[in-house]
């Protein structure tokens, strides 16, 4: 097989793959964009065509202003939930992963059982509401943060445990001999070394939590608690005949993950695969 023929073959498969991928994976996004900049009448036709009249700015303003700037409030809430939950997931997850990997004992079986349950069992919704009400956490932002932590823990413990196994024990032992307390060893020596996997975890979990729809739907009712995904769901009935605004909303909701994706593409790939394959 000559080099040139090989190159041509690769290029041709590439072009073919690109064409197919464009139709299947890119056109839907282009469609969202086109619908979002159309006028109300044109958007209601559902056609895939260039808008005859661009109305991007007006649609944007309309969506943002809907229901007294609800979308901005939603961005704020979603950000607070995401940042809060991811921070706790990093710290809690790393602490458990560390002890789990470093200290073999009978308890580990129990912890692994909990991880398996956490990955597999669907949350019992109404009883969870009942518990949240009892703790005074129902329909509160911090309650939602704890829920996301509870549901995301299993994954982050697994991710950290497999990464910590690559960190030599000599490091913690050296620190212990120097007289460091356990929490000093962990926070000053180990945690900084976990940076690569932490970046991954932050990216992966923040996207998952930001995009979460089901849990806020159940546990976070009330319009002052609205999250980004819920605005989309609520506006579906409000914008019944204003598809341009509905799609502008979809576009706005898609932008944060797109940015994260552009800047952290490599970490996402590393995290999704290492966590999944090794774990």
């Amino acid at each position, binding site marked *: 097989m000559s080099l040139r023929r090989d190159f041509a073959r690769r290029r041709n498969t590439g072009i073919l793959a690109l064409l197919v991928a464009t139709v299947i994976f890119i056109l*839907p996004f282009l469609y969202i964009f086109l619908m979002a900049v159309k006028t109300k009448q044109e958007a209601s036709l559902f056609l895939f065509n260039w808008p005859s009249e661009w109305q991007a700015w007006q649609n944007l303003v309309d969506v943002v202003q809907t229901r007294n700037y609800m979308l901005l409030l939603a961005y704020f809430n979603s950000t607070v939930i995401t940042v809060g939950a991811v921070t706790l997931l990093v710290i809690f997850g790393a602490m458990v992963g560390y002890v789990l990997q470093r200290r073999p004992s009978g308890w580990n079986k129990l912890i692994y059982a909990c991880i398996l349950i956490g990955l597999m069992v669907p949350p*019992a919704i109404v009883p969870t509401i*009942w518990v949240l009400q009892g703790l005074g956490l129902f329909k509160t932002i911090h309650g939602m943060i704890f829920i996301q932590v509870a549901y995301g823990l299993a994954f982050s413990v697994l991710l950290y445990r497999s990464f910590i196994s690559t960190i030599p024990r000599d490091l913690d032992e050296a620190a212990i001999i120097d007289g460091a307390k356990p929490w000093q060893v962990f926070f000053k020596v180990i945690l900084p070394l976990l940076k690569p996997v932490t970046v991954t975890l932050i990216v992966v979990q923040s996207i998952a939590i930001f995009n979460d729809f089901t849990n806020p739907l159940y546990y976070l009712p009330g319009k002052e608690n609205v999250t980004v995904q819920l605005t989309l769901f609520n506006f579906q009935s409000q914008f019944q005949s204003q598809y341009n605004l509905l799609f502008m909303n979809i576009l706005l909701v898609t932008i944060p993950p797109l940015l994260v994706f552009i800047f952290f593409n490599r970490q996402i790939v590393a995290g999704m695969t290492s966590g999944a394959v090794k774990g």
Partner: protein
Amino acid sequence: MASRRPSPYPYWFVLPAAVVFVALFLVPTVASFWFSLTRWDLFDAEFIGWDNYRQFFKEPFLVQGLTNTLIYAVVTSGAKTVLGLLLAVLLTSGIWMQGFLRSVVFFPVLVSTIGVGITFAALMHPTRGVINLGLESIGIDGPAWLSDPALALYSVALIDIWKGVGLATLIYIAGLAAIAPEYYEASRIDGATRWQQFWRVTVPLVRPATVTVVTLSLIGGLRSFDIIWATTRGGPGFASDVLASVIYKQYQAGFYGLATAGNVILFLLIAIIILPLTYWFNKREVDL
């Protein structure tokens, strides 16, 4: 074990995580077994024995939800596994624009499910939707994707596959990267064709990735809710209802005991399917 000095890896490190997990995950899960035996309106729970379970299995649409859940999980995870592997092979073969194509395939994974649902509901509109207009232009009369009872569940599954295949591809790409090139070298010297290489080298050696993809997508498929709710809400009628959407409807109708019984059934279903599967996967691994 029993050293005088406290361990440098103290168990209280586990405590904060354990408190959250036990309070918000384990306690509700255990409590659900009790509440599923009651008629419950969040204020009072009246014990009614197995009535909720009897009710659940008596109603044909709840049973249909059960079969739909199985069909949906098998179809989506099967397709994600097969397509994911094929795409991964293609996207590691050094084709032109490989990196860009990987990103394109993966991006839908990161997008809001509700947004995807609304978008595809518009694209799949039976008379005005882009898909059917496209088919019409080449002389095909497109079906009512989301409102034909025989098709709705599969159309939703198709959207799910579109959204999720990127993750499977990614896991497979990592799995393929872990295969030592010597294996391919050796089989080429033995005169194996590319097809034989795929079956004799790639498929067996990429096994760990397959295990992950199958397990993850099966669990995801069995629990699937958002994409169904964003497109068909279980309709037309009950044609695309799955357990999770049936549970949600009982919850919304205020039948909290019944909803919780559904939850327990879903939990048992997942356990019955996933536990033997992981056991079998692990055993095979040892055999190899």
